[in-house]
C-alpha cells in the first residue's frame, strides 16, 4: 500500500502482528515448555511454573521406555531420504522433458500429474493394501517408499516443471550451437543453474514423507513404523503422561522444523509460487 500511515494505522497493524504472533507461537511454546515440566506440575491447577517444576527427565524416560521412537526416527529418515532421492532422480528429467520438448501427450500427462496430488489417500488405500500384501511389502520400508513416490514424484515434477519453463530457451539453444548434446545441455547447463529450486523441492518432498501418517498407519505394523505412527501410538498408550507425550512430539517435529526454518526462503519461493503459476 502507499500513503502516509496514520498513528492509528500503525498501531492496528502492530496489534494485528502481535495477535498473529501469539496465536501461532503459543501452542508451539506450550509444546516445548510442557515437555520440560514434571507431571505433578502439569496436573496442578493451575499448572505450576516455578523453576523447580522444570526437568529433562521426560526426554530421558521417553528414550528409555519407547525403543520404538528411536526406530521410528531411523525409519522416517531412511524412508524420507530414499523417497526424496528417487523422486528427484526420476522427476527432474521428466519435469525437464515436459517443460521443454513439445512431446505429444504432454498436456494430459501434466493434468494427470496435477490430479494425483489432489486425491485423498483413502481412494487408493484399499487396492494398495491388497497389492502390497501380495508383494509381501506390508511393514517394509520399501513398500512405504513406493507408496510415497506416488504422491511425491508428481509434486516434484509439477514444481520443477514450472522452474524449467522459466529458464530462457536461448541458453539451451546456445549450448546446442556450441555442440552440446541434449544430455550435456541438461547436465552442464540446466541442472547447475536450477539447483536452488531442486533443493527446495527436495526439502519439500522430505518433509511430506517424514510427516506422512495415513499410509504408514495402513501399511506398517512394527518394523517399518515411522515417527508419526510411533507418536500416535505413544499418545494412545501414555495419554496421561503428558510431559513425555510432548517430549516425544517435540523430538519428532524438531528435525523437520529446523530444516524448514533454515531453508524457509527457498521453500517459500519454490513451493508457494509454484502453486499459483502454470
Amino acid at each position, binding site marked *: 500500500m502507499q500513503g502516509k500511515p496514520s498513528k492509528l494505522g500503525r498501531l492496528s497493524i502492530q496489534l494485528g502482528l502481535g495477535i498473529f504472533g501469539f496465536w*501461532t507461537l503459543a*501452542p508451539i511454546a506450550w509444546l516445548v515448555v510442557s515437555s520440560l515440566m514434571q507431571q505433578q506440575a502439569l496436573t496442578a491447577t493451575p499448572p505450576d511454573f516455578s523453576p523447580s517444576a522444570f526437568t529433562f527427565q521426560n526426554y530421558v524416560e521417553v528414550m528409555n521406555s519407547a525403543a520404538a521412537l528411536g526406530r521410528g526416527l531411523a525409519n522416517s529418515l531412511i524412508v524420507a531420504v530414499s523417497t526424496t532421492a528417487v523422486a528427484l532422480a526420476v522427476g527432474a528429467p521428466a519435469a525437464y522433458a515436459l517443460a521443454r*520438448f513439445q512431446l505429444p501427450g504432454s498436456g494430459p500427462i501434466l493434468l494427470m500429474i496435477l490430479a494425483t496430488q489432489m*486425491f*485423498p489417500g483413502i481412494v487408493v488405500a*484399499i*487396492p494398495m493394501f491388497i497389492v502390497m500384501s501380495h508383494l509381501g511389502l506390508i511393514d517394509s520400508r520399501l513398500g512405504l517408499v513406493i507408496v510415497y513416490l506416488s504422491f511425491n514424484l508428481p509434486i516434484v515434477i509439477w514444481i520443477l516443471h514450472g522452474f524449467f519453463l522459466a529458464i530462457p530457451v536461448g541458453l539451451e539453444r546456445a549450448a546446442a550451437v556450441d555442440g552440446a548434446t541434449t544430455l550435456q545441455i541438461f547436465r552442464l547447463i540446466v541442472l547447475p543453474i536450477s539447483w536452488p529450486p531442486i533443493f527446495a523441492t527436495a526439502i519439500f518432498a522430505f518433509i511430506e514423507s517424514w510427516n506422512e501418517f495415513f499410509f504408514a498407519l495402513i501399511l506398517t505394523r512394527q518394523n517399518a513404523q515411522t515417527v508419526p505412527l510411533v507418536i500416535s501410538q505413544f499418545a494412545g498408550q501414555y495419554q496421561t503422561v503428558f510431559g513425555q507425550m510432548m517430549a516425544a512430539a517435540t523430538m519428532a*517435529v524438531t528435525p523437520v522444523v529446523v530444516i524448514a526454518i533454515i531453508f524457509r526462503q527457498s521453500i517459500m519461493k519454490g513451493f508457494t*509460487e509454484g502453486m499459483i503459476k502454470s
Partner: protein
Amino acid sequence: MAGITLQQRRRRFGVGALLPAVVIILAILAYPMAASLWLSLHHVELAGGAVAESFIGLANYAALLDDDSFRLAVSNSAYFSVCEVALVVGLGLGVALLLNHPLGRSGFFRVLLIIPWAIAPVANAVLWKWILNSNYGILNAILTELGLIDNYVTWLGTPGRALNMLLLVDVWKSIPFIALLLLAGLQKIPAMLYRAAWLDGANAWQQFRFITLPSLRTTLAIAIILQTLWSFKLFDLVYVLTRGGPADGTVLLNYLAYRQTFNFLHIGSGAAVANVVFFISLILAIAYIRMLRPGGRKVPA
C-alpha cells in the same frame, strides 16, 4: 538423408526422460484407482483370509443414501469444509496483508509461518489433544484464570463442540500455507499500481478494494480450491483427536471411508465412500487446473 535433426534428438531424449516417471506414476496409482472403482461396484466378503467378490452394480452407492452415518459424514464434511475454507482464506489473507506491510516484513514472522506448516499433522494433533484436555489442558487453565469460564469445559465431549475444535486445530495448521500463497500473490502486484492509485487519491481501503483484490482474484480462487481439497483429505487429526467421536460427531467422509474399510471390513461400501470423495476432489482439481490455464488467470506477470 543421413543424421537426425536437433529437434528430433531432443524429442527422443525427452521421451526417454519422461517415460520412467510416467510408468512409475501409472504403476503405483492407475491400478489402485481403477481397482477402487471396481471394488465399489462389488460386494466384497473377507472369509478366512480369502476374498469373495460379487458384482452388485451401484448397490453400494445406493445403500449409502439410506445410511445415517454416511449422511452425518456428508453434513459434517460440508460444515467443516465451508467453515474451514472461509476461516483459513479469510484469516490467511489478513496475515498475508500484515506480512506484506513494511512493519511485518521482518524475517521473524516468516519463521513463524513456516513452523505450523512443517509440524507433522500427527504431532500437531497430539499437542492439541493435550491443550484441549478437559482436566489438565492449558486452554481450560487460561480461560479460568482470565475468568472467561467458570468450570472446565470438555472441549471434545459433545459432537458439535468437538467438530468445532477440530476446525480450530486444522485452521491453525492451515493458515500459514495459504498465507504464504497469498503473500506470493501480493508480492507480484507491481508497486507502481499503488503509487498511481495513491496519486489518484485512493485511500488505503480503496487501494485494497480496487487494486489488491482484483489483482489477487486468481490467487484467491486457487487458495479456496486447494484448501477445499485439503479439507477433504483431513485424516490424521480426526484419527488422533477424536476417532470420529463423540457419537460420530467428527466423522468426516474421508474418515468414514477408512472406518468402513479397515475397522468394519465393509470393503465395497468403504470403496464407494472413497469414490464419492474422489469425484468431489476430481471436480475441484479440474477447477484448479482451469484456474492455472493461461487464459483463465489474471495474476499480473
